[in-house]
């Protein structure tokens, strides 16, 4: 239920009254989950799938990537919890508002979304210490999500208090307790956008990292610069470059009301050349006055068209395809081991038949072959169990998504492609590739077919051509595969001479791990 603030607009009960302040602190730290029972059950099931079933699986059927897969599954689980708590975050595109300290991010959002009403706390001091999401909903409410994944409804006074003033008054900061704040309002005109107000960069390392972590999840970025700076500071450029991935970027020179049109247009053109020089792709650069809610650009409609573009795009969640990808690592390893043992057995069987050898040796070979068969059956069983577990997890996630009315991406034409790039940058990437080994003997003698050393020999219109001298084998990743998996062209990811790992799958297929 929405708690209406009873305090006068210039007073804050949590700051004025210590008892109320303490109550708020207790509420935010030890909140109980508000998640409905049905969803809780699905979440519990997924947790059991990961914490019990998956761990059992990898204990029985070893895989060198188990730790990474486990950690990825935990991340997915964490995201599912967020989705359950804030379904709208997954159902909308995120437009992040970033910028250095005192660039006026919160004031900008107040201007764009609330026509200047000061919902988000603004101050010349550091204010937004906790990433704050603003989104449209049928009723006005504010929620906080703490580190224990518990969601708590708070009022406007609490929002102002936790953002900064609380630390000033009581010496307690909420930035380490609260993961995010979600402000839901009826009057936000963009129904398909979640706006993200981030802590200003260059405050301190922790705030920078929090800002980066949240910005990386965004789909669009509005970067605010105080026009008094004259241009985009190098520190801002470094911060944007450090985000390590491409997203639609609009640079806004804020506080432009005190500048002449010529000064604004000069600042904009210098900024554009700086961005181009640093190879930062951008949508546009404009001047803006949060004070007057006015845009300074030749058309005067750049911000509106930027936001309309996001508002009209189709959003689909990628949670399912992420589970698919994570399990793919385990399954491809199992598949590779299975094929490898099959190859060994074929070799042994052929040898025992073809070669003129003593019966004694033939019996030994048959014995080894039998053991290999046993191992083979064990691996096939592991592969089956992993597939079943994957399907179970996907089913449970699907049930939650259906309950929350969230669209699922088909995994091929993702509308959240930038998030794909993001995940590429965060993790190592696996690409399916065509494979050929001139002499099978080279593979049979390998100790570990999962990690054959390869070197990128050529990148051309077909894709990336990789060679392994160790096994006299070749692999080719098609251009389409690189584009689909990473959202980038092969030239942006690979360079001639790069070392990669080839994971043998079958005599015709392999996985290239970068």
């Amino acid at each position: 239920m929405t708690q209406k603030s009873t305090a006068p607009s210039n007073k804050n009960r949590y700051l004025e009254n210590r008892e109320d302040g303490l109550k708020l602190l207790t509420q935010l730290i030890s909140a109980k989950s508000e998640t409905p029972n049905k969803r809780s059950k699905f979440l519990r099931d997924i947790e059991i799938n990961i914490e019990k079933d998956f761990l059992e699986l990898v204990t029985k059927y070893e895989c060198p990537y188990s730790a990474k897969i486990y950690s990825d599954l935990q991340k997915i689980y964490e995201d599912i919890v967020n989705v359950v708590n804030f379904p709208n975050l997954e159902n909308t595109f995120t437009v992040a508002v970033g910028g250095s300290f005192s660039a006026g991010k919160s004031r900008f959002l107040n201007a764009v979304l609330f026509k200047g009403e000061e919902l988000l706390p603004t101050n010349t001091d550091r204010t937004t210490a906790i990433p704050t999401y603003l989104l449209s909903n049928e009723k006005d409410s504010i929620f906080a999500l703490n580190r224990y994944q518990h969601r708590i409804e708070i009022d406007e006074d609490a929002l102002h208090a936790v953002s900064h003033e609380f630390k000033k008054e009581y010496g307690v900061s909420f930035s380490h307790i609260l993961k995010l704040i979600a402000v839901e309002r009826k009057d936000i005109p963009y129904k398909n956008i979640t706006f993200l107000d981030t802590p200003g960069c260059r405050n301190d390392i922790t705030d920078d990292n929090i800002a980066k972590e949240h910005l990386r999840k965004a789909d669009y970025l509005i970067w605010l610069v105080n026009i008094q700076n004259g241009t985009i500071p190098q520190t801002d450029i470094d911060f944007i470059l450090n985000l390590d991935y491409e997203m639609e970027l609009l640079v806004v020179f804020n506080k432009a009301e005190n500048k002449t049109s010529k000064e604004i247009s000069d600042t904009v053109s210098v900024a554009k050349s700086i961005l181009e020089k640093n190879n930062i792709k951008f949508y546009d650069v404009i001047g803006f006055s949060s004070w007057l809610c006015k845009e300074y650009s030749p058309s005067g409609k750049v911000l509106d068209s930027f936001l309309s573009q996001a508002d009209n795009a189709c959003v689909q969640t990628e949670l399912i395809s992420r589970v698919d990808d994570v399990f793919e690592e385990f399954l491809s390893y199992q598949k590779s081991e299975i094929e490898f043992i099959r190859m060994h057995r074929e070799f042994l069987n052929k040898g025992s038949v073809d070669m003129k050898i003593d019966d004694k040796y033939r019996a030994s070979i048959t014995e080894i072959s039998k053991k290999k068969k046993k191992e083979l059956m064990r691996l096939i069983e592991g592969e089956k169990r992993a597939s079943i577990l994957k399907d179970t997890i996907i089913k449970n996630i699907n049930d939650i998504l259906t309950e929350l009315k969230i669209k699922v991406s088909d995994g091929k034409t993702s509308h959240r492609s930038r998030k794909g790039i993001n995940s590429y940058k965060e993790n190592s990437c696996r690409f399916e590739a065509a494979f050929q080994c001139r002499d099978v003997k080279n593979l049979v003698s390998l100790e570990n077919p999962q990690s054959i050393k390869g070197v990128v020999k050529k990148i051309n219109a077909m894709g990336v051509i990789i060679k392994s001298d160790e096994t006299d084998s070749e692999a080719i990743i098609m251009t389409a595969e690189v584009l689909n998996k990473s959202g980038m062209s092969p030239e942006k990811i690979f360079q001639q001479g790069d070392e990669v790992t080839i994971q043998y799958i079958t005599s015709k297929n392999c996985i290239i791990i970068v």
Partner: protein
Amino acid sequence: MIKHIKSVPEKITKLRMETHPFSNKSLEKKMAYLFGMVLVSIIDNELHEKERSYLAVLMNTLGISINEIDKIKESVIIDDPNTVDDIASSLSLRSLSDKYYFMLEAIVVVHQDDFIHRSEIQIIEDFFRLFKMNKIQRKKIFEIHEHLKKKDFSKVLRCAAKINIKIEPFIEYFSKTSFRVKLYENLSNTNLDTRVAGILKKNKIHLIGDVLKKQKKIPQIPGIGETYMHKIKLMLKENGMSWDTDISGYPDKDFFTMLNPGKICSKRT
């Protein structure tokens, strides 16, 4: 953009040409060869069922997983002139017989759908130019192709011997493999009366191979009388078959899935 075609299974069909001069080449060359063939087959913005079948058999022959076909198709950028250059450079065809072979196969591929589009002629010309092949050499290739189409294999062999080109895989394809491929042709794509085809379809007889396999049951199907049986016989004859045609090994499930009859959608949008 090409609509996504249902991906084909990893376990591939046994349909392949026994000898192919590129089957022992490096993966890069094989892939460049395939890229070339895919490019000529989709340059008219259409991948015909017959072109797809031919490419599948070629992929089997070269030892490349059929799963790669969609990725190759997506990777080939028709309008980019670098694509043709990169293919030619990766192929690095030095011997004239390899050039002859590539060009002959490209011509065979574009003729699969019985309709030659202007863009197909253009791309063939581009390859001729890149391989620096003169008019006489071009003429010889077209001559072999004409004989192949007519299945006049003695003339094919004679012409091929003159330019030292390994022609056996083509003869094998045109004499045996293409016939095997035909078994998977949907009855609605043949000249069979639509009413007959409809009755057969209702009785789960969709392909030419099905007709031969279930030939004993067909006369018992209600609505199929002597006239219709005659029409079916004529259709078989038009496709070079009879009731006695040997269909051992049919259906090859993997090939069937690959063709995905009735669902093939390859038009570019």
